[in-house]
């Protein structure tokens, strides 16, 4: 699996998002109130709206174009809306954001829970380095 270093954890504002361009894709990195980081393709499953521009609340983001609410954990639309956007594995290591450049595949999705662990998105930042201690390089 190919990872890129997307910069320091605190480059993403809390309840905000940043984008990253890799291999022709735009990946949106979200940081929630509880300092978890998620990576989704920056395309709403509805009409391709840039999810990175939405309002982040709980573990969801609301697409700025037509207010679809996307679950950051699964990449799936919530409520009666149907559709999903691609997820990317993301880790925080020594205060740096490491993002896989290829999305989590359907096969990996179907794998048992323990096998999924290393690629699951939404790794808590505190697991590796408490965000409060990180300062911008």
């Amino acid at each position: 699996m190919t990872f890129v270093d997307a910069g320091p954890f605190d480059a993403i504002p809390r309840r905000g998002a940043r984008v990253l361009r890799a291999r022709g894709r735009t990946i949106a990195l979200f940081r929630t109130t509880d300092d978890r980081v998620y990576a989704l393709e920056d395309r709403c499953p509805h009409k391709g709206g840039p999810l990175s521009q939405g309002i982040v609340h709980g573990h969801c983001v609301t697409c700025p174009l037509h207010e679809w609410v996307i679950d950051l954990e699964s990449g799936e639309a919530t409520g009666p809306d149907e559709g999903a956007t691609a997820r990317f594995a993301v880790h925080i290591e020594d205060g740096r954001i490491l993002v896989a450049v290829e999305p989590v595949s359907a096969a990996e999705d179907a794998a048992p829970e323990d096998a999924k662990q290393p690629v699951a998105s939404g790794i808590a930042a505190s697991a590796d380095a408490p965000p409060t201690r990180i300062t911008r390089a």
Partner: protein
Amino acid sequence: MSTKLKVTGIDVFSAGDFNGDEGSDALTFHDAGRGVYKKLVVRDDRIRGAVLCGDTIDGPWYFQLMRDGTNIADIRDQLLFGPAHIGDSGTAGADAVTALPDHAEICGCNGITKGRIVAAITEKKLFTLDEVRAHTKASSSCGSCTGLVEQLLANTLGGDYSESPSVKPMCPCTVHTHDEVRKAIREYALKSIPDVMRFLEWKTEDGCHKCRPALNFYLLCAWPGEYRDDKQSRFINERAHGNIQRDGTYSVVPRIWGGVTTPKELRAIADVAEKYRVPTVKITGGQRIDLLGVKKEDLPRIWRDLAAAGFVSGHAYGKALRTVKTCVGKEWCRFGTQDSTGLGIRLERMAWGSWHPHKVKLAVSGCPRNCAEATIKDFGVVCVESGYEIHVGGNGGMKVRATDFLCKVPTADEVLEYCGAFLQLYREEARYLERTAPWIERVGLTYVKQRIVDDDAGRRALYARFLESQRHAQIDPWAERAAGKDADEFEPLDATLLRDGEPA
């Protein structure tokens, strides 16, 4: 609760307290020849009940007015004749929906037909407006078909239709209404979004896309100069200070005071358009120039170039003062009675930068021919020889509404005072995302007149609060960002390849 019956072939509609009591008035209409009888029970300028026989088409409209507690003082003289005689305003579009064929489009924003809505209601067992919105998207965009959708629900479900309560919570994160939240912010001096959520026991940790922008505005309005704006609680347009377009690019509209510009300014806009390869340049309905298709990364650079030519943000993207449209007025027009352009520029200089519950548009026309279309603006001025007529509460939006005449004042200085006071009253009392038109229909023109026209001291106090708020609001957001503020909003992250040899 409202009921629609067919009693021996006669349509009957009844709602609320249709008997009335000592404190109420009964408005009646009786046409024995046509077999039509209508009775409305009114107390304290509100409809308390209704009975309609023979002609029940306006039943849903009366019911809506009753449920919303709408002040009907200003439409009382025409009330019995139904919404058709009052104009488009205030009608929830709730008539004749039964007669429509299944292929009739109900929601124009999302292209949803009557047939699809009815099918969704029956097949998915939907009982509320919110459920219909979630499953079909009907009424979920501009909302102008809400009355029709509610009517379809009522017709399809009959007695099972659960009316949405007339006073709704702000959003599913709270049990409190907009008005209760605002009152708590003032009375308990709540100064931040987390404070409000803690104090009012929000059900979610950090709200949602509906409540957070509303709370941010209420706090900004309550504590000018003190509250620190939470940009993550603003819709993207107000965070990026441009209008997001369907392809994710942004539009840039520089402020052109009163719509008056110069060759030098036009040249600067043309230079920017060429330098950044702006795909579309368009004149807007509000007499400004729109640069469409700008990449987000380019925004701060475009703004820097525009600032160098003297431009500030036009706020075409915000729940804010948008434009002041003017005609050429006395200076050029043979019919002009006053300097409408000059007054428009003064109004725009006073009001630019102010945040509101919804967008706000102004206009000044130099004579009653009204070329600036002041009578479909939130605050419009029509100049006459003897002074200035002030009109409020209009819009040309999804439900066109002509303004109500507020008053006439003799001087331009007074126009500024009345304008500032009116805008401040709207800021302080309207609900988030409620434009001046529905706000005025809800509280009644009489109330607005009391506050702005009859109460001189109150008006001056409102005006003073508006000016105080403007001291903190009139900071050009474009210049700030061109100078580096919120740089992370506009720049993508740099990725460095980490693990293997493939290029990222």
